[in-house]
């Protein structure tokens, strides 16, 4: 079948290329509309209970897209007219930002922040600094006193040392465009910043905006890396086609996929750009294999280009297809993890790899058939080939000797065991404070640390208390329970502070008792608490208490501020919440986890945690089945498993060593890399099999395989490794730098195991699927015997 197909394709090569060109142009046109952006909903596992609670309550209790600004003075405190004016101006200007939730802008200068005061006329609830700034020193002094004595302000919106003020602002999830929010906020900051005053800003929208801001740099690095790959290919391959075909194949398939996903309405996450190299590397690998097979055929058989191209297509189609299918299968498994970002990455990866069946396995040989081999000469010759050949001979000697081959396997097994041991230490969720996407000394992470050292924390979670009937939240036992939950949670290292209805009620009671803190507590019955709430909210907008309760006082929220969003912090907080709710039940109300950024991250981490092991196991099953099927031998399935496991454990232990954790951003790399390098192994074993059936000599067969397929492996690996590490040196984003290293490591392990471990296993174990009898349909005898005419006839038949 393959034989006929290859003849046919080469025969109609003009039509084939024309068709592919048309497809490329059309899809390329669509690909121009590709959206490179971050969508917050991509991070959320939609069916997870936490995400559902977040969706249900986020409009009132505050969603995950919160920006926190801190106005900080170098000397003295913020109670100066010019500083207060800055706070007020930022608070006002934020209202005009796109997608902002205007009811959720909170600061010293917002209407929501009030003081309950006892006066001769009774109890008043007045905004602290709204609508007007204090005009005299005396009024500023009054404001300072009021701020200090108000627990909703002091430590929450004004730092305890009075040197900083906080402004928080919520965005509407479905409207937010990170591309716009970041520059708009930056503009507000630039306008107000003066000497001696610093404005720092953090939050999910800022982070996403920063990443988009780095997009030009990212694209520059992409260009540079492609240039370096081209240069390295030119040096190693020596010919123009050796340089252009891998790039063309990777590029064309990429264009197809980008075109298709644009049509499907899928966006590309900016952080996924580095991952495209992980996928495109496969196109480079397969192309180099084809190129090198083409050269081998031409040289050894003295064939013309058309016949050599046809033979290369025919011989490599099976291992190539097997490699691509395994890869795609392993990637598709990731789609079972119900996080849209991962599903999209999985889909893009699988489609791209799938496209390589046409864009690489077919297109490259067809293109090669035009090579005018006789008049072609090497553009560069740096004697790289000599060095590569020498290295390959070394590999051959190493693997075709009983003692050294055994040593190789022992080393591999030990490495597997050791790396497997350390791999399990990998963390799920972020491993360090701040954002792992940026370097610890980046401005963003320094701002984050600065804000979190002065305030309870910029990352938020809300836990919902659902009541069975209205006014449930006024009941003293419910309020006491909420208060004790807050107290319990505030014991956690990562929790900077909590707020609830309790914190609204208590100051009112205190004010009613002449400001005596001995009465800083909730009332003894629901009626009294209702009165306190009435006083607290007199003259305010209905939305002002929305962060803590609905208007019927049936469902409320405890707001928790987190100093960081490390995986451990989140897991501990979630577990502690569940423990508390289980140990301290109250009739008529129930705790429901969990909204806000921390709630969503908790859901994503839980899904990743339970899904990761499952994904790897399923990917290995896919690998087993494809191999067993392709070689019609369960032995083949077993044979390739350890290799994939090895590169996974090595990479994972590297990640845990470097503190790179598994999260929504790094998981696609781990997932799309799982089948990486499996094609190397397929090409090598196929070549061994081919040579053995011709000559019957194991040693010869391994030497042959290494000098042909092995050479291509080295060229591919060297090229890709040398270029992806450039991320490490040039990217301002820590994520890209680390992923560059990770991909390089992954490719190194795959290449080494294909060059050394596979031949050693073959030599020592003599697997039947390689050395067994030739089955029907396989035809190794026709190697270089056929003539162009004969194939042409067959092809037409």
């Amino acid at each position: 079948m393959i034989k006929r197909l290859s003849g046919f394709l080469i025969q109609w090569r003009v039509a084939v290329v024309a068709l592919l060109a048309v497809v490329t142009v059309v899809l390329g046109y669509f690909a121009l509309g590709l959206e490179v952006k971050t969508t917050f909903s991509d991070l959320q596992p939609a069916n997870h209970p936490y995400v559902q609670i977040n969706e249900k309550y986020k409009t009132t209790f505050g969603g995950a897209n919160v920006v926190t600004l801190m106005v900080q003075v170098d000397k003295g405190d913020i109670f100066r007219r010019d500083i207060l004016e800055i706070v007020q101006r930022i608070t006002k200007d934020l209202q005009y930002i796109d997608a902002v939730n205007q009811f959720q802008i909170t600061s010293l200068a917002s209407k929501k922040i009030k003081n309950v005061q006892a006066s001769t006329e009774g109890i008043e609830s007045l905004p602290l600094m709204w609508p007007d700034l204090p005009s005299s020193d005396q009024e500023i002094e009054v404001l300072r006193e009021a701020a200090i004595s108000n627990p909703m302000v002091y430590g929450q919106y004004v730092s305890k040392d009075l040197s900083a003020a906080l402004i928080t602002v919520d965005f509407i999830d479905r409207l937010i465009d990170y591309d716009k929010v970041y520059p708009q906020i930056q503009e507000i900051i630039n306008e107000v910043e003066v000497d001696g005053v610093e404005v720092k800003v953090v939050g999910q929208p800022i982070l996403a905006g920063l990443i988009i801001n780095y997009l030009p740099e990212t694209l520059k690095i992409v260009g540079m890396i492609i240039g370096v790959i081209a240069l390295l290919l030119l040096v190693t391959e020596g010919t123009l086609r050796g340089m252009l075909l891998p790039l063309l194949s990777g590029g064309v398939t990429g264009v197809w996929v980008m075109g298709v996903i644009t049509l499907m309405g899928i966006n590309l996450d900016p952080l996924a750009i580095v991952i495209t190299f992980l996928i495109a590397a496969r196109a480079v690998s397969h192309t180099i294999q084809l190129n090198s097979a083409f050269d081998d055929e031409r040289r050894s058989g003295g064939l013309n280009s058309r016949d050599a191209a046809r033979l290369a297509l025919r011989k490599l189609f099976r291992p190539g297809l097997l490699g691509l299918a395994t890869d795609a299968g392993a990637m598709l498994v990731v789609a079972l993890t119900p996080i849209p970002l991962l599903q999209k990455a999985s889909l893009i990866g699988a489609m791209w790899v799938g496209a390589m069946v046409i864009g690489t396995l077919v297109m490259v040989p067809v293109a090669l058939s035009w090579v005018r081999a006789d008049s072609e000469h090497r553009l560069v010759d740096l004697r790289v080939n000599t060095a590569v050949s020498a290295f390959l001979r070394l590999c051959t000697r190493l693997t075709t000797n009983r003692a050294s081959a055994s040593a190789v396997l022992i080393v591999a097994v030990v490495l597997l065991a050791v790396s497997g041991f350390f791999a399990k230490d990998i963390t799920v969720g972020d491993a360090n404070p701040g954002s792992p996407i940026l370097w610890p000394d980046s401005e963003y992470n320094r701002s984050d640390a600065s804000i979190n050292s002065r305030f309870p924390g910029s990352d938020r979670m809300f836990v919902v208390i659902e009541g069975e009937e209205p006014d449930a939240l006024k009941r003293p036992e419910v309020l006491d329970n909420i208060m004790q939950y807050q107290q319990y949670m505030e014991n956690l290292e990562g929790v900077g502070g909590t707020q609830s209805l309790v914190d609204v009620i208590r100051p009112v009671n205190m004010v009613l008792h002449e400001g005596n803190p001995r009465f800083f507590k909730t009332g003894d019955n629901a009626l009294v608490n209702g009165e306190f709430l009435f006083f607290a909210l007199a003259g305010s907008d209905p939305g002002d208490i929305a962060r803590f309760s609905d208007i019927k006082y049936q469902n409320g929220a405890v707001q928790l501020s987190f100093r960081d969003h490390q995986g451990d912090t989140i897991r501990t907080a979630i577990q502690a919440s569940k423990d508390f709710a289980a140990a301290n039940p109250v009739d008529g109300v129930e705790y429901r986890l969990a909204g806000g950024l921390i709630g969503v991250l908790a859901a994503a981490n839980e899904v990743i945690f339970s899904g990761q092991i499952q994904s790897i196991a399923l990917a290995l099953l896919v690998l087993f089945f494809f191999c067993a099927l392709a070689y019609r031998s369960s032995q083949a399935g077993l044979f390739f498993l350890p290799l994939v496991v090895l590169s996974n454990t090595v990479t994972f232990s590297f990640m845990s060593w470097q503190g790179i954790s598994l999260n929504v951003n790094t998981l696609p790399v781990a997932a799309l890399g799982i089948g990486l390098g499996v094609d190397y192994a397929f090409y090598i074993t196929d070549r061994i099999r081919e040579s053995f059936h011709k000559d019957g000599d194991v040693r010869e067969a391994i030497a042959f395989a290494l000098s042909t397929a092995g050479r291509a492996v080295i060229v591919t690996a060297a090229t890709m490794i040398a270029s992806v590490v450039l991320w490490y040196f040039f990217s301002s984003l820590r994520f890209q730098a680390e992923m560059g290293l990770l991909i390089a490591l992954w490719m190194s392990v795959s290449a080494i195991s294909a060059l050394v471990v596979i031949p050693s296993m073959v030599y020592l174990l003599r697997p039947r699927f390689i050395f067994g009898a030739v089955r029907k349909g396989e035809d190794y005898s026709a190697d270089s015997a056929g003539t162009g005419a004969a194939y042409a006839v067959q092809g037409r038949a």
Partner: protein
Amino acid sequence: MNKNYVSYALEVALSLLILGGLFWVAFFVKPSVDVPSVEAQAIEPRDNFFGVASPGDSGRVVWAAGSFGKIVRSEDGGKTWQIQPTPVKSHLQDIAAWDAETAFAAGDKGVLLMTRNGGDSWQLLEVDTFPMGGGQFLRAHVDAEGRGWVAGGMGTVLLSEDRGATWQQAHPRKDVSWNDIAVDSSGAVWVVGEFGEIQRSPDGGDTWESIPSPTASSLMAITFSGRGKGIAVGLSGTVIQTVDSGKHWTAVELDTSAHLFDVSWSGARYQAVGNGGVLVSGTDSGQWDIGSVADGNYGWYTNITATDGGFYIAGRGIRFLGPQGSHAFTSRTDVAQVDKRESE
């Protein structure tokens, strides 16, 4: 041939084993994660301690009582604290001790707790309270003669003359909250309360007389230095002074409007605490300083107790004010760091 079959069988068996294993992992393994359980800390960030007591003068043994029936004790001057289990969830407003073994705490909803074993166990005492707010106990006090006193809402004054075994009302019901109680060197009992009210009992609570007050602001605490001299403090920076055993009280003008909640005599100086981190200190000769319990500290404190080395204060946390400055006691390291920055 046999050998081939064996290896073939082995291979199939291994395949099935690995396949089965992978299937099992893929569908049945539910990974779990060890999460450290949350230990209740002796002093938690959200705790309010309304009262603090240190029996003896050394300051080694310290008790503090506060919100949700919490009592903590230190036996090493505050380095380490232990939670003492109590049978109540009501807020405890004050604690007072006869010695390191015997102490009582008073609080909301008529709660009176008693221990005779250093707090290993606390018993809830049954006491009669006045209706409509008489169950709101505010202060606990042990005087030089070993009598126990409780002051509270609705004119409540409770007296125990048997080291806490029995308690009886020692003041008629009255619609005023007594915010503090003190006994001067002559043995007269003093109560201060809302609207600047002052009352005196020369006979251990049998009879009471109203004393003219120079202020209408609520008085929160009263103390005597001896030799007929004493002061009372209250809301909005109120300080009143007597030098004639309380016959006459005069207002001291201070440059602060902060509420003052408690005052203590160290043997050399008065020290008063209140809200906004205020620390007022002064002498009978009328020299007054207005400072802060710690630079950058704006918390409120409702109780101050003198020891030989300095003062314990309680409120929004527990602190020690010594000659070397002030430090907070906390079970949380990161809070301690924040506090350190505050005092820098």
